[in-house]
């Protein structure tokens, strides 16, 4: 085999020694590589086909489960969402029937829509954000200067103390929440005849038995028990001095006596639905020198500026009272 090989060259008419050819060797290597690769590919394919690693098996099973159940769960979810939409409609209609007004805060907004809206016009959105930012800074400045002016000029002296102490300043029930204020001061719809009438107080809906609190220190002026199915029912009036009187109506229990001295925040009775009332609630009035004032303005303590805004807008809805 080690014999030298020759080629016949037709041009020179001689046998010429076969040269050591790079091309030939390269071709040989390429041939090995190509076939080697073909074998590699075939083996890999076979290996893949025949051998199943435990991890692969596990993943395969998991993926099958995930994709199968995803279809079922998506269907369940779609169904649930349909039911939810249906319930939302019912909830809304119930709200409208109960309060004779459209619901302001729809429960549960769909976020993607909002996000889409935000993203749809990013430039304009950024612009309005920066405008709002500027406006906000301006307002802060004006509020600061206002505060400054107020602090320089307002002095609370000893003679102002009785007025300050006598001013009702807390929510009149235990565990008050903003949403419990269901009807405000002003012209409202009467639940019985659906006509408009002047509602001289606010209605705070709460479960029976919730404690009603005195909103400022004072002396019990009137406690009245009444079985009559109209009017205030069982009610209490408290004289706080300085012309302030508060009235708490439709109570279930009265826990104070006429003439009794009261601290601010002292329980005086419990929520009920006595008198002309359609639901367990407290009808709360604030009277200064014989004139009924909007009691929402006296829910001062323990409430932030934002919460106060919410309360105010809630009390301004011209809805149905609980009487």
């Amino acid at each position, binding site marked *: 085999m080690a*014999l*030298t*090989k*020759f080629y*016949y060259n037709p041009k020179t008419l001689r*046998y010429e020694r076969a040269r050591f050819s790079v091309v030939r060797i390269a071709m040989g290597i390429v041939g*090995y590589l190509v*076939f*080697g*690769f*073909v*074998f*590699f590919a*075939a*083996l*890999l394919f076979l*290996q*893949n086909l025949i051998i199943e*690693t435990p991890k*692969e098996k596990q*993943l395969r099973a998991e*993926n099958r*489960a*995930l*994709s199968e*159940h*995803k279809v079922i*769960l998506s269907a369940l*979810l779609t169904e*649930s*969402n349909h039911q*939810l939409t249906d*319930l939302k409609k019912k*909830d809304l209609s*119930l*709200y409208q*029937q*109960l309060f004779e007004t459209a619901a302001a805060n729809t*429960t*549960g907004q769909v976020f993607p829509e909002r996000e889409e809206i935000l993203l749809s016009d990013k430039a304009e959105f950024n612009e309005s954000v920066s405008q709002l930012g500027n406006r906000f800074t301006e307002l802060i400045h004006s509020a600061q200067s206002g505060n400054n002016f107020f602090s320089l000029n307002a002095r609370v002296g000893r003679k102002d103390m009785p007025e300050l102490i006598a001013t009702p300043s807390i929510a009149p029930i235990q565990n008050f*929440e903003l*949403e*419990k204020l*269901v009807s405000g001061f002003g012209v409202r719809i009467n639940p*019985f*005849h659906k006509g408009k*009438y002047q509602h*001289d107080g606010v209605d705070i*809906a709460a*479960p*029976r038995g919730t404690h009603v609190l005195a909103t400022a220190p004072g002396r019990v002026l009137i406690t009245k028990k009444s079985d*009559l*199915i*109209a*009017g205030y029912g069982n009610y209490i009036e408290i004289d706080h001095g300085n012309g302030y009187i508060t009235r708490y109506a439709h109570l279930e229990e009265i826990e104070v006596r006429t003439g009794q001295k009261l601290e601010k925040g002292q329980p005086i009775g419990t929520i009920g639905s006595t008198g*002309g009332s*359609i*639901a*367990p*609630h407290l009808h709360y009035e604030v009277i200064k020198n014989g004139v009924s004032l909007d009691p929402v303005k006296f829910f001062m303590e323990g409430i932030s500026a934002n919460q106060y805004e919410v309360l105010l807008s809630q009390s301004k809805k011209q809805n149905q009272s609980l009487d």
Partner: protein
Amino acid sequence: MNRMRYIYNAETCKYEPVIVSPKDAARRLVRFIGISFVLGVAALLYFNSRYPHIDETFQTQINKGLKAEWDVLNKQLDRTSAQLSALEHNDDHNYRVILDLEPLDQSQREAGVGGRAKASEGIYYPMVRQAYEQAEKLKNRLEIEAQSLQQLQDELARKEKIWASRPAIQPVSNKDLKQLHTLFGLRMHPLLGYVRPHNGLDFTAPQGAPIYATGDGSVAIAQYSETLGNMVFIDHGSGLQTRYGHMTKFIVYAGEKVKRGQVIGYVGNTGTSVGPHLHYEVLHNGTYLNPINFFQRDLNNKEYEKLIEIGSQSVISLD
């Protein structure tokens, strides 16, 4: 290209063409294939040492994609659940308080209607099982909430009926009303001349002024009596009855259903009466109540004060 190859035979001193025997060719082929195969195996071994199993990689990729989709699904479940929670909160804290019903507790809500086979049972994958459990809980809560809203709706409808039947307006319009005698209780009878209870209010109005039903109800009695003249009694349910007397005539019949504000007759002077007026009474479980309590809120406080003042001035009623 395939040029003939030669070798120099020293014995014959000739160049002889190289003839490859089939055996040789086969041997070469086997050698070529063998080396290629060894190369292939070596490459495979190297590949296996460096990279995971191909299908494993595939499945991992699919798995990643699926898990991302499941994340979305779980988020959607959470969102639906949160929205439902808002409804439930509204239900428990607003509607149930106002409609005087007990709130439902969370375990009651999640328990569902019962009797359903659990879809989550026997599923090994915690992610899937949890999602099923959540979906099931959601389904139960939705059903309970649907029932609850229905209950609230029914209760509201029931109460609306009661509210609509409550006497709540003046039986005679302000534009016809000349005088309202608010004296209720004991007083001197103008014709009989002795003290006896006056159980209603007298609305002085011109003969023929319309009289309105003050609440929804059904007519119990519509007839003539010696004392009340042409009179109508209306039952409003829940123990409430209103009575209207001294009419010129009534235009309803016993058993007829009437609506609030419906004209039931006209002001007159029949029975023991000395001038055209309506005598109006409100009874609760047989007890006479002062009817002023059943329409006062229509008027603002000043008007109401005026009413009381006018009423208290009249010493003799028209009854």
